[in-house]
């Protein structure tokens, strides 16, 4: 039976317009990444509800393709669903990417963002070329 694990990239945004680059190693026993979700961990003032807070893009050891491009919105009743992804992982795969704060407000308060990578130890089917 396959195992599903959530690998978390946690980012702390400390100033408006901040650009945070990250590299994150996925445990070697995980073979495939099947989904991702970006989530606002910190509490933010309700005045920012429905505003875009930032944008994130990430790739899996390849600068040719950005597997993840998404934006973070401050929502009260946001969906907890993961966006689909189907990426085969190499042992000890590194995901690298950038988060850019787009809030750019004067009364900025630092906040934490989590990127969840839903991964499985089950090999995916090889796609026909």
């Amino acid at each position, binding site marked *: 039976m396959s195992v599903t*694990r959530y690998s978390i990239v946690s980012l702390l945004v400390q100033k408006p317009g901040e650009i945070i680059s990250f590299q994150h190693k996925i445990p070697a026993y995980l073979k495939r990444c099947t989904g991702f979700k970006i989530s606002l961990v910190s509490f933010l003032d309700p005045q920012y509800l429905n505003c875009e807070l930032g944008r994130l893009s990430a790739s899996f050891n390849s600068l040719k393709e950005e597997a993840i491009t998404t934006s973070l919105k401050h929502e009260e009743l946001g969906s907890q669903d993961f966006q689909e992804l189907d990426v085969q992982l190499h042992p000890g795969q590194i995901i690298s990417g950038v988060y850019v704060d787009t809030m750019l407000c004067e009364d900025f308060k630092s906040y934490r963002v989590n990127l969840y990578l839903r991964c499985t130890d089950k090999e995916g089917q090889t796609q026909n070329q």
Partner: protein
Amino acid sequence: MKNHKFQQIRVRVTDFGESVRINAQTDKQYAKIRGIYVSLPDELLLSGALLGLRVNNQEVFEDAHEIKLITSGHQVAPNKKFFFFEEHLEAGGSAIEGKFTDGGHEALSESPSKLELMRARKAESGYLYEAKIYLWLTNE
């Protein structure tokens, strides 16, 4: 014999932002952990609350895993509230270890009366609130 049990693990939080270690053991009479549900006394407490979970020393959730991703609110039907584990997670007396982290009082500052109530409870009983973690154990 019954095939299902909802085992409760109670976590008492004594301060905002506090991390509480969890140590428990699943009921020996059940074979599998089917799902998990975390109940907090107020939905505002979900903001920033984290839960790390290990079963028999095997990491299921990292310490930075947000509780809001594995629980549901009052609007969800009782029999749909649980987060299901797709894999076979052994129960049968498994060691449960974890870390519950409170999300701080910022969300509650939106509702000063609730914040005040919690502080009054702490003055009375020594803790702010109790989080309840339910493990759905089954033999099926």
